[in-house]
């Protein structure tokens, strides 16, 4: 024992159980933060509603693997909804972590009401209030005749959001058979609250390694 061990794990320190437990908890904190690439535990600005969380956890658990060195994110929408049909809602998402990652899959999950009258025609726009008169860019359009959950794939370029990390999507939907204007539409066509509220499912990876100037030369 007198000889100094050449490496730290060769001589197991005989710690008191309490001291060992405290040391283990400290090591666990460091190991987890390092594994999640965090410097400290996150301070959560607006935690999602518990009902929505439960639905999301069930969705994430259905086996689809996390991409190698990547992450899967579920972001819940804050809905500002001017019409009763929810067909011209603005969905706001907070995505600050996207700025430092490579986004390679984005899907918007919407829940169509069970009492859908016929075929629903839906368009999804990226809405940027900062550009002139709140301009909007079409990201996807779909028709569906079945109620329940639907995942609409969006182009990653349209989801990156503003530098502020805030993404706004605007929905525009109406029954295909009925030509009444969306604003006048009275029956609700989409669920936007509770555990059937809309959310984004994103798959991100470590940022693409920037090609260094030397390598390009």
């Amino acid at each position: 024992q007198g000889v100094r061990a050449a490496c730290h794990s060769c001589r197991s320190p005989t710690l008191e159980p309490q001291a060992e437990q405290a040391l283990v908890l400290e090591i666990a904190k460091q190991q987890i933060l390092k594994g999640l690439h965090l410097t400290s535990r996150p301070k959560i600005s607006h935690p999602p509603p518990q009902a929505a969380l439960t639905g999301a956890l069930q969705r994430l658990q259905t086996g689809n693997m996390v991409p190698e060195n990547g992450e899967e994110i579920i972001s819940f929408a804050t809905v500002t909804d001017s019409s009763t049909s929810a067909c011209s809602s603005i969905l706001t998402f907070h995505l600050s972590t996207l700025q430092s990652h490579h986004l390679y899959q984005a899907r918007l999950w919407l829940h169509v009401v069970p009492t859908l009258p016929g075929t629903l025609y839906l368009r999804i726009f990226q809405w940027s209030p900062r550009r002139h008169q709140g301009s909007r860019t079409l990201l996807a359009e779909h028709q569906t005749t079945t109620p329940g959950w639907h995942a609409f794939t969006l182009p990653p370029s349209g989801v990156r959001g503003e530098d502020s990390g805030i993404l706004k999507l605007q929905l525009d939907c109406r029954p295909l058979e009925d030509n009444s204007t969306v604003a006048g539409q009275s029956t609700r066509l989409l669920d936007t609250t509770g555990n059937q509220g809309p959310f984004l499912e994103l798959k991100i990876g470590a940022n693409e390694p920037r090609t260094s100037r030397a390598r390009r030369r």
Partner: protein
Amino acid sequence: TPTCDPTTPLCCRRDHYVHFQDLGWGDWILQPDGYQLNYCSGQCPLHLAGSPGIAASFHSAVFNLLKANSPWPAGTSCCVPTIQRPLSILYLNQDGNVVKVDVPDMVVEACGCS
């Protein structure tokens, strides 16, 4: 790998289960409830050097005895992890989004002498 008991001075795996509640992190780490924080510690005398930490075959037993009686200078051998597995974690990030990530090499399954 032998799991450590107080009488074992040799290289072994020490098992600890850490509940995230005990860290005060149960509010942002959603799943799992905790994880196995194992680590390796113990002596690695020369005749164990390079052994994978499991019951060795007759060949490696003889080979180890040869090493133990070798005139060559003893190098130092360390008790290190030999098998590790990833841990899948679901947590809330600073935006309040749910993030699922597989953290590689998070749980030590086996230890051995380098």
